[in-house]
């Protein structure tokens, strides 16, 4: 029987991504565990059991342990963890929210993460995203579910300077988005002599 190998959808992009200058740095992040949480309201018990106050302000995220809690809707959040296995995270979150009438579903395989850093990343993102990403309105802690190029993404502001953004994209669209980002970053890339 053939051995099934775990591969990252952007494995084939690493060389081209590494060639980008520091002003438009794209880093492919390793897999993290992600759980989609549905919960009608956020009672204090939920915060205590989860160890994080789920954000109730639309389009924001907060740090949650080693991961993040991202607002997805008035009754929906994405919880991530860089240290727990998907099944561990799902079991822990499920134990916290099911008694309160909520649900938790492992969605780790749905999206992969990219990190865009550098002084020109906002210019790159602006080519395919209509959200105002100026740090005045999209500082650290802001998030947005929107489209970038033609791909649905979750954008996370990771700095107050507008030079550090997390992008979550569906695995099947990751290759398309990586190609799109490389093309959008082209004008900020210096061509080597000869």
């Amino acid at each position, binding site marked *: 029987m053939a051995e099934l190998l775990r591969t990252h959808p952007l494995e084939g992009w690493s060389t081209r991504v590494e060639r980008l200058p520091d002003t438009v740095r794209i880093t492919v992040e390793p897999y993290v565990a992600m759980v989609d949480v549905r919960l009608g309201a956020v009672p204090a018990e939920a915060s205590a059991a989860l160890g994080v106050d789920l954000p109730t302000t*639309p*389009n924001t995220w907060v740090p949650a342990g080693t991961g993040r809690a991202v607002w*997805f*809707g*008035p009754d929906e959040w994405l919880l991530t963890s860089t240290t727990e296995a998907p099944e561990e995270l799902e079991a822990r979150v499920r134990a916290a929210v099911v008694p309160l009438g909520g649900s938790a579903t492992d969605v780790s395989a749905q999206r992969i993460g990219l990190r865009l850093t550098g002084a020109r990343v906002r210019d790159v993102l602006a080519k395919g995203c*209509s959200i105002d990403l100026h740090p005045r309105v999209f500082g650290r802690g802001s998030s*947005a*579910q*929107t*489209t970038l190029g033609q791909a649905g993404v979750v954008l996370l502001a990771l700095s107050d300077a507008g030079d550090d953004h997390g992008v979550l994209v569906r695995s099947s669209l990751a290759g398309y988005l990586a190609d799109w980002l490389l093309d959008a970053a082209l004008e900020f890339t210096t061509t080597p002599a000869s």
Partner: protein
Amino acid sequence: MQLIACPWCGPREEVEFSYGGQAHVPYPDDPGALSDEEWAHYVFFRANPKGRFAERWKHSAGCRRWFNAIRDTATYRFERVYRLDDPKPVIP
């Protein structure tokens, strides 16, 4: 491109939204008691005004929530948006 104000996310480009038809069409109290004709009216028959119309919209590419909007079908202008649990505004 027109911006539509999602009640949760604020103004976003129109392409992020999808249309859901006439709003405030109540589900029949006793579906089993409906005649075929009444059932057809509930499922298929919708108002088609020229002017302000209460409609369902969904922020498909964003928070994926349904909401209602008053839109002018002649100008395509969105006059207001409101949440599903808000009462139907009086349409002048």
